[in-house]
């Protein structure tokens, strides 16, 4: 059952990821990206990380993608015009990327040869309680620093919008 679920949702993630890159309309790319994020949340559940799966749906598929879709609609972004296109990129880009993927997969299968399959329920530390305990004890300083980071991001976004209003 786990294997079937991985094949189904991993396949959806791969196809949607390909669609993100191939679509010419930004809104179609954005909706494909939501598909990738939703199926990745399912894979996180299979790996036993319920907390991260919930945060993935709420923060990524919810908040971040709503922001993207809102900007796309606000700017009325249509189909993208093709660029000038570099000859080197056109000739070498795709083969180099596929070569990179093959080399990467080779190293992975070399480094992780263990045949025992991923089982749902073997990893029991993925709940909100365990993740929260780690966040507020061992990772307290990075956690507080992220609050500063978010504050700076909010101020940056406000300043960028403010400059336009003043003109």
């Amino acid at each position, binding site marked *: *059952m*786990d*294997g079937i679920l*991985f*094949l189904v949702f*991993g396949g959806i993630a*791969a196809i949607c*990821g390909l669609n*993100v*890159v191939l679509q010419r309309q*930004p809104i179609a*790319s*954005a909706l494909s*990206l939501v598909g*990738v994020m939703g199926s*990745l949340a399912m*894979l996180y559940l299979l*790996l036993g990380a319920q907390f*991260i799966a919930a945060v993935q749906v709420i*923060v*990524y598929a919810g*908040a971040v993608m709503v*922001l*993207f879709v809102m*900007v*796309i609609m*606000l*700017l009325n*972004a249509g189909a*993208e*015009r*093709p*660029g*000038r296109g570099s000859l080197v990129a056109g000739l070498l*880009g795709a083969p180099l*990327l596929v070569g990179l*993927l093959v080399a990467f997969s080779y190293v992975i*299968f070399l480094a*992780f040869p263990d045949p*025992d*399959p*991923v*089982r*749902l329920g*073997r*990893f029991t*530390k993925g709940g909100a309680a365990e*993740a929260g305990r*780690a*966040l507020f004890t061992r*990772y307290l300083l990075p956690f507080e620093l*992220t609050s500063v*980071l*978010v504050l700076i*991001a*909010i101020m940056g*976004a406000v300043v*960028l*919008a403010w400059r*336009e209003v003043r003109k």
Partner: protein
Amino acid sequence: MTAAGVPLSWYLALGGLLFMLGAAGFVFRRNIITMFMSVELMLNAANLTFVALAYRLDQVDGLVLAFFVMVVAAAEAAVGLAIILCVFRTRASLHIEEVQSLRD
């Protein structure tokens, strides 16, 4: 590949595939918003790798790192989209080849 489950390396390979797709999108696309979404795709691939290795090492640390990646991605999306709005207002275009100067 049985009904019982797939090896962990398959998860990592899927992360590699998604990262490669994101990198390809960032390099080959010419729309600023689509390039930005490709960056998000790469961040998601990194998150999948973090969670898979947390499972493998039986530690919660990978999940915490994935959580931090999400926070940074959310902050980055807010600032990045504000910059895209500014670029669109000054140039009335989302084409990356028309953005060649940092000034207005």
